[in-house]
């Protein structure tokens, strides 16, 4: 009889711990969907503090991009006129959109809070099961489960719950990430240094100074925004609009400027000559 009670207590504890584990992986997606509308992409976790050479980092494009959307039926692949592939932010009024942006910026913190909550729940379950007299190994197991739950939460954002990747190689794109096709020819701007006269990151307005561009656009150390050039983006070219995320590994703690990434090749001659940026 004693043995049966002992096993009963253990099973209760295991069930509690497993319940938490499921909450950390399977239920995560459901909770996230309640908080984050599927039309908005989450930023891919925290700023890459260790971002330096690309060689030391994994490729974002290897799995996160183009992942199947959980609610594809709710959000058609193409927008009303076929120009927006994934996100049509204009469905929201401005106030709502601002709130979404705020949520996106806070995404990582929300996630962390959720992880903390899971950890607390796991600790509660340990306290509850202590009465059953099987605290010993269970403490380690439950704490480990809590850690895993937090880790699951983090990997959920990192591994592609987003509708669009937060950047090709680095998590450098935040805010509302929107892919669109340029309706008519339009001049954009690009800053660069040295002889790197072609690149895919542009701005709609010319940056006011080199120092401002480096900070607001979170430029890596190799780009000191020495020059500015005009770039003629022809009608029909696809771009991705976002806001630059801060990259602390590059000493860029600000970011926030609106940026446009060319998602396809445009003729080399469309990149105008560079002129010094003050």
């Amino acid at each position, binding site marked *: 009889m004693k043995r049966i009670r002992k096993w009963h207590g253990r099973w209760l504890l295991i069930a509690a711990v497993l319940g938490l584990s499921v909450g950390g992986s399977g239920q995560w997606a459901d909770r996230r969907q309640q908080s984050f509308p599927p039309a908005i992409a989450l930023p891919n976790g925290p700023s890459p503090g260790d971002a330096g*050479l*690309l*060689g030391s980092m994994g*490729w974002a*494009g*290897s799995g996160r*991009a183009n992942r199947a959307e959980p609610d594809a039926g709710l959000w058609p692949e193409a927008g009303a006129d076929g120009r927006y592939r994934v996100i049509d932010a204009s469905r929201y009024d401005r106030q709502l959109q601002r709130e979404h942006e705020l949520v996106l910026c806070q995404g990582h913190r929300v996630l962390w809070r959720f992880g903390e909550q899971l950890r607390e729940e796991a600790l509660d379950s340990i306290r509850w099961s202590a009465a059953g007299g099987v605290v010993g190994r269970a403490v380690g197991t439950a704490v480990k489960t809590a850690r895993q739950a937090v880790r699951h939460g983090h990997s959920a954002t990192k591994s592609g719950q987003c509708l669009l990747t937060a950047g*090709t*190689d*680095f998590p*450098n794109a935040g805010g509302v990430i929107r892919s669109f096709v340029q309706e008519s020819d339009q001049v954009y701007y690009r800053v*660069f*240094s040295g*002889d*790197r*006269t*072609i*690149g*895919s*990151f542009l701005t709609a307005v010319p940056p006011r100074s080199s120092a401002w561009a480096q900070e607001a*656009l*979170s*430029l*890596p150390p*190799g*780009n000191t925004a020495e020059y500015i050039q005009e770039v003629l983006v022809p009608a029909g070219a696809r771009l991705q609009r976002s806001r630059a995320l801060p990259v602390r590994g590059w000493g860029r703690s600000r970011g926030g400027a609106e940026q446009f990434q*060319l*998602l*396809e*090749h445009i*003729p*080399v*001659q469309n990149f105008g000559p560079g002129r010094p940026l003050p």
Partner: protein
Amino acid sequence: MIAFSGKTIRVSGASLELEYPVADAFELEDRIIVLFNPDACTKKFGQFPNLVALRPTGERLWTAELPTTTSGDRYYKVASRNPLVVYSIHSVECEIDIATGRIKARRFSK
């Protein structure tokens, strides 16, 4: 000595006809490094691996790896011949291993 014009390369008096117009070509050790004109491929989607190494006979030794998986990626300039450093359209500077065509080091410039 190498000379090139359009799709043709002349190496030691012999001509090689290539598939795309050549933007740059030079000898490096026992091979010829060729950068095809980045505008030569007008496909709307997909990448254009446009840096190749050839034997003087025209046999292709390798096609250089591209630094991203983003559509439209290709190289547009040879920044250094030895070591072989090239710039990609998607703002990545790459050092290429001339033995294999693989990327040895890369740096993002945005």
